[in-house]
């Protein structure tokens, strides 16, 4: 794919202008009528030919971007992946069934019991509306298609569209060659594929398209100074705001870019028009999204954009005054006064706004972006999410491969040919790479920038190399080269005359580049197939004989819930599984992946980390009927609840100081075997995970109760449940569901954790119980 881009670069150059018309004329003369027609259509002018090749390459890239994301559909089935996409799917289903207004006003009583959630006001509707429109359109065209198929294929479809945007962006920033390379690179870049495979029906799927589109349109607006492009960019921004919370990146990057242009003295009327219209219209449009509302004028994260907006007005005003005043000294004085006043007014406005609470301070999420260590200390709920962890260097290599080396080279080329557009792409690249280092999931945001900048490097290098390689043939045509290509190319070409080995060297380097790019293609395909195409709701492992073993336990459990529990049953689980339980199990959950209420999540964390009788009180107060835990001890599935348990303790302890993390650790070590902390061995989560596990032999040659996920023999094999009873355990024990018993019919608190002691006199027995619980 990348290889395909290479011949384009060869033909993009108009160096062979002369030879082609000559070749064109010769067949015309000797051909007959009928072949003449076909040949006439085939033998186009060079420009048209080039356009044809470009379009066909783009089409191929477009198709490629789509089909490379279909691994998961081929390997598993057409289904929704992971956690958040299930919520998106559920809401899309609701939207297509009940219509937009019902969706907009939807109060969901099935999640966050008993608080409920206003769905319409707490989501970014862009994705759902997009999918619903595609669905309605297909229905209108009489394609009887299920909404799930639309949802599954939305992300690949938008990835394809992103390649087109990348092409135009590359063309805008550099040239059409770089555009084509960028399109090809981004089509298969693993950093992007990780969030846009078929079935990964998440906001990011359409948001990256919207992000790149907004940036492209804005750069176009800055380059042309056209109101129409700025308007288009405002609409792109609106779409982005409707689709993903990552729009905050745009609303901060663009002002920063404008600020840099101002400082570097690149202020122009084009910039003024582009930014002002984009900001004002974009802000007004964004306010139409309920979830965003007045944040653009009220929240700290959006204040930078507003500040730059006012700064630009001051700049314009000064420019105008300078134009009127001919006296430089007078202007200097005026400048000083104006700037001081402007800064003072701005600072006072910001201070008063913040102090009065009109402008909300920066949120924890924003802080944790700027400071990688912030979340760990202050917001465990953010730090607990694996995709919010700081990025390991290996995952950069994994997701970018050669782009990691091409990126600095591309930066070099950008600095070489500095323009408004390249400054933008450089800033986009540098900031997003920083954020990608802070959080794993933000690699996604960096991917388009890295692809674009790398594409510039690839395109420019190959262009130069081919020039060198072809220079021998065209020694006489140096003038042409100078006219059409860059200055550097011509200087290389003239150098070439003096150094004959350079041609061979150039060919060798070209081959090397080709090798690298083909390696990139292989790597991307391999990563897509192996790492990013598993739905995570269906687990796959290699069996003892190398065969594929499928664990479909999640769906088994959710369908059990759907078929065997009362429709109004409330299920308590850790919040990771909330969306899936409501979407697939159709049951009410206490907490889910929309982590809007920390206290509620902490309550669940507290229940999970308390003793059974204490947990029972909490569960009764929340009307819990079933408890669901995920357990990997039998299969060796490592992202189960026991491994997440410390986060439950931390989040629970953050709100309820009764829960203390050291109680669950032994010498700072987290363990589940005989040496584990007593509280750990008797907390609800441990009991529910390991109930009846002590009887089970999981591996040959190991004692019963050997936990394969952690590789130890468990410490408490004799687990008795007093207040819960096992309701269902899936075939591989991955999901275990327990029913909360109703209160004891005769004695409300008869069964305690104290074993039944019939030989101890009554009075003493209560004394014992007091000792245990006091």
């Amino acid at each position: 794919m990348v290889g395909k881009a290479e011949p384009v670069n060869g033909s993009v150059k108009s160096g062979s202008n002369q030879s082609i018309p000559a070749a064109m004329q010769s067949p015309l003369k000797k051909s007959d009528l009928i072949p003449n027609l076909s040949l006439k259509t085939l033998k186009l002018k060079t420009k048209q030919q080039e356009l044809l090749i470009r379009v066909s390459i783009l089409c191929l890239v477009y198709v490629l971007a789509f089909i490379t994301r279909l691994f998961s559909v081929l390997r598993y089935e057409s289904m929704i992946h992971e956690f958040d996409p299930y919520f998106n799917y559920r809401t899309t289903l609701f939207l297509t069934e009940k219509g937009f207004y019902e969706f907009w006003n939807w109060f969901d009583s099935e999640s966050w019991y008993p608080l409920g959630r206003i769905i319409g006001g707490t989501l970014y509707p862009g994705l759902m509306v997009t999918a619903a429109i595609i669905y309605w359109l297909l229905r209108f065209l009489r394609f009887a298609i299920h909404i799930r198929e639309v949802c599954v294929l939305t992300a690949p479809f938008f990835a394809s569209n992103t390649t087109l945007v990348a092409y135009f962006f590359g063309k805008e920033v550099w040239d059409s060659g770089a555009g084509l390379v960028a399109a090809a690179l981004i089509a298969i870049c693993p950093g992007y594929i990780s969030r846009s495979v078929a079935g990964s029906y998440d906001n990011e799927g359409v948001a990256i398209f919207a992000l790149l589109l907004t940036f492209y349109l804005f750069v176009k607006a800055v380059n042309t100074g056209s109101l129409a492009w700025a308007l288009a960019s405002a609409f792109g921004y609106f779409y982005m705001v409707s689709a993903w919370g990552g729009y905050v990146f745009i609303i901060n990057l663009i002002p920063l870019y404008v600020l840099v242009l101002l400082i570097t003295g690149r202020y122009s009327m084009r910039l003024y028009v582009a930014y002002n219209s984009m900001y004002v219209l974009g802000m007004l449009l964004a306010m139409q999204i309920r979830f965003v509302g007045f944040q653009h004028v009220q929240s700290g994260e959006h204040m930078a954009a507003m500040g730059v907006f006012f700064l630009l007005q001051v700049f314009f005003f000064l420019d105008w005054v300078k134009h009127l005043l001919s006296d430089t000294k007078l202007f200097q004085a005026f400048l000083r006064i104006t700037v001081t006043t402007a800064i003072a007014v701005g600072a006072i406005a910001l201070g008063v706004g913040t102090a009065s609470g009109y402008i909300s301070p920066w949120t924890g999420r924003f802080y944790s972006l700027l400071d990688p260590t912030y979340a760990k200390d202050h917001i465990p709920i953010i730090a607990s999410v694996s995709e919010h962890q700081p990025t390991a260097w290996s995952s950069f290599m994994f997701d970018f491969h050669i782009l990691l080396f091409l990126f600095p080279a591309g930066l070099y080329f950008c600095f070489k040919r500095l323009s408004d557009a390249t400054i933008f792409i450089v800033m986009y690249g540098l900031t997003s790479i920083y954020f990608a280092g802070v959080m794993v999931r933000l690699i996604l945001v960096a991917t388009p920038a890295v692809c674009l900048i790398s594409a510039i490097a690839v395109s420019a290098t190959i262009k130069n190399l081919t020039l060198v390689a072809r220079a021998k043939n065209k020694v006489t045509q140096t003038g042409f080269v100078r006219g059409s290509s860059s200055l550097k190319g011509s200087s290389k070409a003239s150098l070439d005359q003096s150094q004959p080995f350079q041609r061979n060297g150039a060919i060798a380097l070209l081959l090397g580049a080709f090798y690298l790019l083909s390696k990139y293609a292989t790597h991307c395909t391999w990563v897509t197939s192996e790492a990013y195409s598993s739905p995570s709701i269906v687990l796959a492992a290699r069996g003892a004989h190398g065969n594929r073993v499928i664990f479909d336990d999640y769906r088994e459990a959710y369908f059990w819930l759907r078929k065997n529990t009362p429709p109004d049953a409330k299920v308590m689980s850790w919040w990771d599984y909330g969306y899936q339980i409501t979407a697939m199990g159709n049951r009410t959950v206490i907490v889910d992946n929309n982590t809007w209420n920390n206290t509620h999540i902490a309550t669940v964390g507290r229940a999970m980390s308390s003793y059974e009788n204490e947990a029972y009180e909490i569960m009764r107060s929340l009307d819990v009927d079933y408890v669901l835990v995920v357990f990997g001890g039998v299969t060796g599935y490592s992202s189960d609840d026991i491994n997440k348990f410390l986060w439950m303790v931390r989040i629970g302890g953050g709100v309820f100081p009764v829960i203390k993390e050291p109680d669950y650790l032994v010498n700072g070590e987290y363990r589940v075997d005989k040496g584990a902390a007593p509280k750990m061995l008797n907390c609800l989560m441990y009991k529910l995970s390991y109930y009846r596990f002590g009887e089970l032999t999981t591996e040959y040659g190991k004692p019963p109760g050997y936990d394969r996920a952690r590789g130890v023999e468990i410490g408490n094999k004799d687990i008795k449940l007093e207040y819960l009873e096992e309701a269902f355990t899936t075939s591989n024990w991955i999901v275990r569901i327990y029913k909360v018993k109703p209160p004891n019919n005769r004695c409300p608190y008869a069964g305690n954790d104290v074993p039944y002691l019939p030989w101890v006199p009554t009075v003493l027995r209560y004394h014992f119980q007091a000792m245990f619980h006091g």
Partner: protein
Amino acid sequence: MPKLPLFLILIPFLPFLCTSFSPENPSSRRVLVLLDDLALKSSHSVYFKSLQSRGFELDFKLADDPKIGLQRYGQYLYDGLILFCPTTDRFGGSIDLAAILDFVDSGHDLIIAADNNASDLIREIATECGVDFDEDPAAMVIDHTSYAVSETEGDHTLIASDDFIKSNVLLGSEKIEAPVLFQGIGHSLSPANSLVLKVLSASPSAYSANPKSKLSNPPSLTGSAISLVSILQARNNARILISGSLVMFSNRFFRSGVQKAGTLTKHEKSSNEQFLTELSKWVFHERGHLKAVNVQHHKDGEADEPSMYRINDDLVYSVEIYEWSGRSWEPYVADDVQVQFYMMSPYVLKNLSTDKKGRYFTAFKVPDVYGVFQFKVEYQRLGYTSLSLSKQIPVRPYRHNEYERFIPAAYPYYGAAFSMMAGFFIFTAVHLYNK
């Protein structure tokens, strides 16, 4: 068609088929009586007669009869169980501790009479019902101040107690004049069990010890902590009566006169018969059984029950409560029935007013909070079946078009917007065409 004759044949039998315990007719009908010795049948005949005269079918069996069983083919054969077998170590047939507890947990009633030398089995059953008999098998309740005066100066184990629970529902509206004779083992109530109640408690001077031996250690049970007769109403409204004395049910105690030590009044007849008969009426659901039906709620001015309310809606809630009189359902009249509008804590708590025909109702405004609420009626009164109704209902916020369209307070802003537009238009016109 051949089904019709069969049906017609069955019709005469319908009353027999329908006499079993049912929500419509909550009094127990068929009662299994397990005895240690069939002689009890005659020595306690007055008590049994009073039950039979009220329409109960008593099935007398020896406790170790190998053929006895509480259920057959998954159906319970009896609605009530009387254990007059304090010394039985194990029951015959399929009855054991678990079977009896299951019997209670599926809503059936139980009367246990223990005695000194009560077997471990009976003690265990009692323990499971929240009552602990004195550990010493030979211990009896002794009271040197409120014993029953008799011809021979005994060991003061025959107690005349008049420390009744004050409840007309449990003991009937007729006042119990004479003390109740008691002779047997004392028990204490499990402090953790909030369902079990003392009906007849010992006087503050009573203690529990072996009357034959000298008291070497302080007795474990003393004073009014000793319960003589206790009741328990389980959460599923199964009712249990536990007595530490079997002999108090006997004809001898029913007929004998009583004079409490230290008092001069000599009663012709002890109150044992009245006390135990009234209590058996309660245990077998002839009294104090409530049912709540027909829970309705709807918006004020509408008739249908909505699937969801909106914040600040006005709603009407009603429920019908009836009391079983032994023969029919009568309206229950009280002024202390309350409804809660509950989400983690009650947001609204209102007394229900009644029309004295069984219907309770109230109207209130939904609070300005959205979420999944419940209408809760938790009605627990001494002696009555506990009513615990909850009905879930979500409350949603306003829809986008349910807010006021034009607010007077916003007129300055409307004015500002439109004047801005007009000003911009004029400015443009002037700027463009006035050169």
